[in-house]
C-alpha cells in the first residue's frame, strides 16, 4: 500500500508545479491583459513584410 503514498506525493508535486506556473503567469502580468496578445500574435513578422515590399519594388523595376 505504501506505493499509494508515493504516488500521492508524486501527484501533489506535479500539481504544485502547475500551481507555481500559474502563480508565475499572474505575477508576470499574463492575466492583466487578456485581449491584446490575441491580436498581436496575428501580425506578420516584420522582416516578411519588408521582403514583400522589396519584391514588389523589384517587380516594378522589371516592368521598365
Amino acid at each position: 500500500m505504501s506505493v499509494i503514498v508515493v504516488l500521492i506525493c508524486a501527484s501533489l508535486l506535479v500539481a504544485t508545479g502547475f500551481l507555481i506556473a500559474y502563480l508565475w503567469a499572474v505575477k508576470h502580468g499574463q492575466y492583466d491583459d487578456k485581449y491584446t496578445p490575441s491580436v498581436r500574435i496575428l501580425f506578420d513578422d516584420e522582416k516578411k513584410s519588408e521582403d514583400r515590399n522589396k519584391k514588389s519594388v523589384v517587380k516594378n523595376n522589371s516592368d521598365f
Partner: protein
Amino acid sequence: MEQLEVLERKTETKLYCFHCGDECQDEIIHIDEKIFCCNGCKTVYEILNNSNLCNYYSIDESPGITRKHYIQRNYDFLNDNDLKLKLIDFSNGQRTQLTLDIPQMHCSSCIWILENLYKLNHGIISSKVNFLQKKIFISYQEEKTSLKDIVELLDSIGYEPQLNLDDRKEEKNKNEYRSLYYKIGIAGFCFGNIMLLSFPEYLSIDVAGHEELKRIFAYLNIILSLPVFFYSANIYFISAWKGLKKKFINIDVPLALGIAVLFIRSIVEIVFMNDAGYLDSLSGLVFFLLIGKLFQNKTYETLNFERNYKSYFPIAVTIQKNKIETTIPVEKLQIGDRLIIRNNELIPADSILIKGNANIDYGFVTGESIPINKVNGEVVYAGGKQIGSAIEVETIKDVSQSYLTQLWNNKAFRKDQEHEQESRIISFANTVSKYFTIIILALAVIAALIWHNNSTLAFNAFTAVLIVACPCALALSTPFALGNTLRIFGKNKFYLKNTFIIEKLAAVNSIVFDKTGTITENNSSSVEFIGEKLSDDEKTFIKSAVRNSTHPLSTAIFDSIDSKVIKIINVYDELPGKGIYAVINDNEIKLGSKFFINENQEEDVNDFSTKVFLSINRKVKGYFNITNKYRDGLRETVSELERNYELAILSGDNEGEKEKLRNFFGTDNELHFRQSPQDKLDFILQLQENGRKVLMIGDGLNDAGALKQSDVGISVSDNTNNFSPACDGIMDSESFYRLKDFIKFSNSSMKIIFSSFVLSLIYNLIGLGFAFTGMLSPLIAAILMPLSSVTAVVFTTVTTNVLAKRRGLI
C-alpha cells in the same frame, strides 16, 4: 463666367476615405490612387507611407481616425520639468518609461501602428499596448527624443493622448486584482486535491487494515487547507473584523464565522476523533466565494467614473510675462497672471478679458453650446472655451475658487470614501446578515444546551449549526445576480461603476433630468424657416454663406438646407456675436441677430427662443427658428416612468423650450430653468432631505455636483470614451430610450436575490434538522453545502438571463 462647384453626393457613387472610412463630402483628395476626405487624413497616410507602415491599412479596413475636425495643439508645455516628472512612470536619465491613455484606439490596426512607433521615432525603444485599458506603455531614450516629441508624434497620426495628472491609483487596483487571482488559484488547487484525498471517504471504501492510510490522507488535507484558510479566506476575516470594529455586521461576519468553525471542527475531528473532517467543504466554499467575487468585480477599465474638472481642464496654460510667452502647469497659475487663450482652449480660472475678440462657448458650464460674445473688461468664467482667434485675459481667481470649480469644494465631493463604505451597509445581503447572524448564534447556543449532558455531542451540534447556517447561498447569489445584471447592462451600453449601484438604482423613487445634451440630442437641432418662401437660388446662397462659419448655429442651418450646389463667395465677413455678412453674385446676404439684420429693431428681451434672422439685399426675409431635438423615445420613457416616479427637469438654459417640455412632461412634474451647477446640487439635496432617493441623469460638468450628490448619478454620453463627469454610471445616448427597462430590470434583479435567499433558507432549515440532532456527517455536509451553492449560482444566473431576454435586453 459663373464659377460653380458641384458636390459629388449622388447616392450611387458614394466615396469613402481610405484613411478613416468616412464618406467624402465636401472635398476629395486623390493621392496614390487613394481617396481622402480631408487634408488631415492625407497627411497621416503620407507619414505612414514614408515609413513603410502601410500595413496599417491592410489589417483592418479604413482604420484611421477622421482628421476633419482636427485642431493643431501646442505641446510646448511638455518641456516643463515638473510636469514631465508627473507624467512619466520612471526614468534613469537615459531611459524613460511612460504610460499614456489613448482613447481613440479601436481596432487591430491601431494596436499594430502603436506597437511600431519605433519606426516613426528612432528614440523610442519599444511600445506596448493594452487594448482593453486603451493604454500604451512606451520606453524611450532621453538623448534621442523627448516626451513632447512622442506626444506630438502620436497626435500627428491621430492618436492624441489624454494627458492627465491624477491617475495614480490604478497601480493599487492592479495589485488587488492580481491578489484575487492568486487566492483563487491556491484555493482551487487545494480544493481539488482535498477532494481527491477525500474520495475514499465519499465512496465509503473499506480501509480496514490500512488505518494509517486514512490518517495520512487526513493530515495531508490539513496541510492543504492551511493556505486556503490563512491566505485565500483572509479577505473575509479582514472584512468581517473591519465591519465589527465599526459596529455593524456585514455579510462577511457569518461567512467568516462559518469558515472558522468549519476549520476548527475539522482539525478537532481529525486530530482527536480520528475522523475525516469537512476540509473539502471548507476549501470548496472559499473557492466558490472567490469566484463569485471575481464575477462581481467586472469593471469597465476604459471608463473612468471618478473624473473631476481637472480632467477637462488643460494641464498647462500659456502665460505672458514681460512680453515673453511661456507655458506653465495650470496649478502654478496665480491671480493676476496674463493668459493667452487660443482657439478651442479652455479658460482655466475666472478672468477679465483684456484683449481680443472673445467668443466663449460655455457648453461645459451651462450645457448650451452657442458661444457668447464678450467685450474687453468683462469677466469670463472658468470652463468657457474660446472659439475664434486668440484672446488675452487676466486671472482674478484661483483655479479651484472659480465659479465652476468651487463646486468641487462642496462636501458632496469630500465624503467620497465614507460614501463607498456606507453603500455596503445598506446592501440587501448586509441587512439580512445582521439578523441572520444573531439568529444562528442563538440557535447554535440552544443546540448546545439541548445536548449539554454530552460534551462531544454539544460541541458537534453547536458547530454543525454554525456550519450549516453559513449563508453561502446568499453570499453567492448576490455577486452572481448583480454581476450578471452589470454585464447585461454593459451589453446594452449602460455601464455601471460597480454592482452596488444596481441595488441603489432599484431603490430610487425620484428621477431628475438635465435638459441640454441629456434629453436633447447634442449635435443636432431642428431648424425651421419662418417667413417668406425662399427660392432655390436663395437657399443655395444661404448654404454657401454659412458653410464658412464654424458657429454651431451656422452648422445647424447648413445641415438643414438640402442643396447640392455651393457658390463661390465674393465677400465674407463674420462678426462674432452678431452674424455673418456675405456677397454672392452681387447679392448681399445677412444672417444673424435681429439687431444685426435691422438696426432699427430692438432685441426682444422676453423672447428666449433661438432665432437667426435673414436678409437678402437688405430685405428681411424672415428667420430660422432653431430648437433642440429631443431624443428618440423620450415621450414613451417619460410616460412610463411618470407612473411610478417623481420626475423633474433642471436646465441651465432659459425658458425658451418651456412649452415644448410641458408637452413631454405634463403639468405635474417640476421644470426649473436657469439653474447654476450649484442650484442643481441644492435641488437634489432638498429632495433627499424630503426623504427621496434620487436618480440624476445629466451630461456635462455643470451637472457634476448634482450627479455626485444624488443617490445614483448617471451621465449620458454620445461617445463613452469621451470625458464624462464623476458619476455612478455612464449611459450611451443610443440607449437612453431603454432607461425604463434598466430601472425595472434592476428591480427584478433584487427580487431574484430575494428569491434565491428564500431558496437557500430552505436548504439551511433541512441542514439545521441534521445539525440539531448532532447527526451532521461529513458526507451530508459534502453534499448539502456544494448543492446549495451551485443552486444559488445556477438559479440567479439563469433567472437574470431569462428576465433580460423577456425585456429584450439580450
